């Protein structure tokens, strides 16, 4: 048993982190929210060059995942999506990543290469399609079959960079390959983003608490602040092994446990971050809000906490 990322996996995550920190994701996210997709798509292509969009695609379709397990694994995808969560770049990352679970088609090659953006509707858990207006391919999972769809009404998300659309069902394309696995992978990668966003919110809070002075001293000296942040780091540290464990076992109860715990921990991190920052954190110009709203949106995307808690119970108390 070796339950820790390998040196290669850590190096891969660190290289993505270094790349994203140079790309000004926050500006791209704000532009995306305003309908200017240019900077966001540039980030998409840069990450695709690093293989991020190919991690879940089998090698015979141009991806990095090997049948015999020697290539990219679900763990690699989870680590990459933790980094995405830290920086919150816009775009339908999860939708594109789960596509290989739904069909085996040449479209996977262009998705893996980052040339095709996929938007997915997966009712009832994912009733609204993310970025359906600019996606190159749109799929609706209709129980066990796959359909195309066209984007209907635009819906405003509380996370303004998540541009949602009502899917208008189109033609049936055939059976969906493995919808259960697609849902699990989507929930897992969403959990990974939640954890990454939560960790970033904690770091921002620690940094702020060490600098911001009130009553003649840094607010980080106050026990009231320390104890809030200790609770946050505890929740995040105990959520991560669930996430990595689910990536290893692929067990639905583990996936759901990870989604619940990462969502709870990230939500605690977000609420605490706002409290620690005070009014500056409540302004639209401060980067905290981008993550706070992303966390809230992802908490219910790909299965609400209630749905996932019930999946856990269904598995452990059959």
């Amino acid at each position, binding site marked *: 048993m070796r339950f820790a990322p390998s040196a290669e996996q850590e190096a891969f995550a660190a290289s993505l982190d270094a790349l994203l920190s140079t790309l000004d994701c926050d500006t791209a996210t704000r532009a995306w929210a305003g309908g200017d997709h240019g900077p966001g798509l540039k980030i998409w292509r840069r990450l695709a060059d690093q293989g991020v969009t190919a991690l879940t695609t089998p090698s015979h379709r141009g991806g990095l995942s090997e049948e015999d397990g020697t290539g990219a694994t679900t763990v690699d995808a989870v680590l990459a999506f933790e980094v995405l969560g830290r920086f919150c770049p816009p775009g339908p990352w999860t939708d594109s990543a789960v596509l290989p679970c739904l069909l085996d088609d040449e479209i996977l090659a262009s998705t893996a290469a980052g040339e095709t953006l996929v938007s997915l509707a997966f009712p009832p858990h994912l009733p609204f399609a993310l970025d359906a207006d600019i996606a190159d391919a749109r799929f609706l999972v209709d129980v066990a079959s796959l359909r195309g769809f066209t984007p209907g009404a635009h819906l405003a998300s509380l996370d303004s960079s998540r541009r949602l659309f009502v899917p208008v069902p189109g033609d049936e394309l055939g059976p969906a390959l493995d919808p259960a696995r697609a849902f699990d992978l989507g929930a897992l990668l969403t959990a990974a983003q939640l954890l990454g966003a939560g960790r970033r919110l904690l770091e921002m809070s620690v940094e702020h608490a060490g600098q911001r002075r009130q009553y003649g001293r840094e607010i*980080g000296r106050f026990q009231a602040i320390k104890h809030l942040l200790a609770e946050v780091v505890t929740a995040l540290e105990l959520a991560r*092994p669930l996430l990595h464990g689910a990536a290893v076992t692929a067990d639905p109860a583990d996936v759901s446990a990870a989604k619940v715990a990462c969502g709870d921990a990230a939500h605690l991190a977000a609420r605490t971050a706002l409290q620690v920052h005070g009014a500056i954190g409540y302004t639209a110009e401060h980067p905290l809000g981008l993550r706070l709203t992303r966390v809230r949106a992802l908490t219910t995307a790909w299965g609400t906490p209630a749905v996932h808690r019930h999946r856990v*119970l269904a598995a452990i108390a059959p």
Partner: protein
Amino acid sequence: MDLDLDEPTRRFRDEAREWLAAHVPRSPLPSFDTAEGFAAHREWEAELADARWSVVSWPREYGGRDASLLEWVLFEEEYYAAGAPGRVNQNGIFMLAPTLFSHGTPEQLARILPKMARSEEVWAQAWSEPEAGSDIAALRSTATPADGGWLLNGQKTWSSRAAFADRAFGLFRSEPGSTRHHGLTYLMADLRAPGVTVRPIPQLDGEPGFAEIFFDDVFVPDEDVIGTPGNGWRVAMTTANNERGLSLRSPGRFLSAADRLVSLWSSAGRPEATAARVADAWIGARAYQLYTFGTVTRLASGAELGPESSINKLFWSHLDVALHETALDLLGPAAELRGPWADGWLFSLAGPIYGGTDQIQRTIVAERLLGLPKGDR
């Protein structure tokens, strides 16, 4: 990254599982905080020791199996899953023994550990004093040099297991006028020596799990000093995070408690009102199990356990209370009746207090792990 057990480890786990299935007492032993229960637990510990299951991680020469940390964690899972009794000598096995392994002399190891392994000697901890709870550095009991040893004076309190235990270990101020962490000595004492008075203190459950210990010119020979005199704080702190203790709580007990909670919920007709809390208890126990596997992996590759053990304690102490609160809510009016769940709830309430209160742990986490500036306590 994997969670697969290699063949020897799997064999070790299976052997433990089979032995426990055949030997765990059919009905629960009485509480070890009663005279009758204490005696029954000594017998159980001797039975465990005969089969070399009482201290699996120790070297064979002291009664152990040289088990790896992973094997210890797995053994604990099997132990609690089998419904085996709580460990009456846990202060000795999980607190004193790691201290001895780090700082004890060969003579001390040979003299103390084999009896501890069989619970022929059961140990009490003598940490707290009336003026010093989690703030151990404020303690005032003294050790004064005497011919061939030390004379102990003062009072310890809230000493777990002291009502029936044989011996105790703790810190004493050995340099007059010293303050805080300086001038402390780590000593072991016989609770039946002349000058020792033990006054049992009933806990919330009515049993004397605590006691006050009064020392009145109690002689302790030099051979019962651990480490060097005056260096007791470092001796205590270097082992406070000891990996084998894993903050005294392996995941096994929470996994088995969560499983029992899930069964209780199922047999109560799966009430929706508590569904989320039951799910969260299982999620928490699974999280702690996997977190521990991560810790075991890091330690096996040479890392040392630091202040993150405070995270352990914050997590499981909260989990244990929440899990038992959920069980009591499920039981309805019957929850107030004494029984395993009510007793477990009472015990869980101590978690956020002992071993350094949760407030202290949060401060440690914030300052040492997150790097926030030091401030007023």
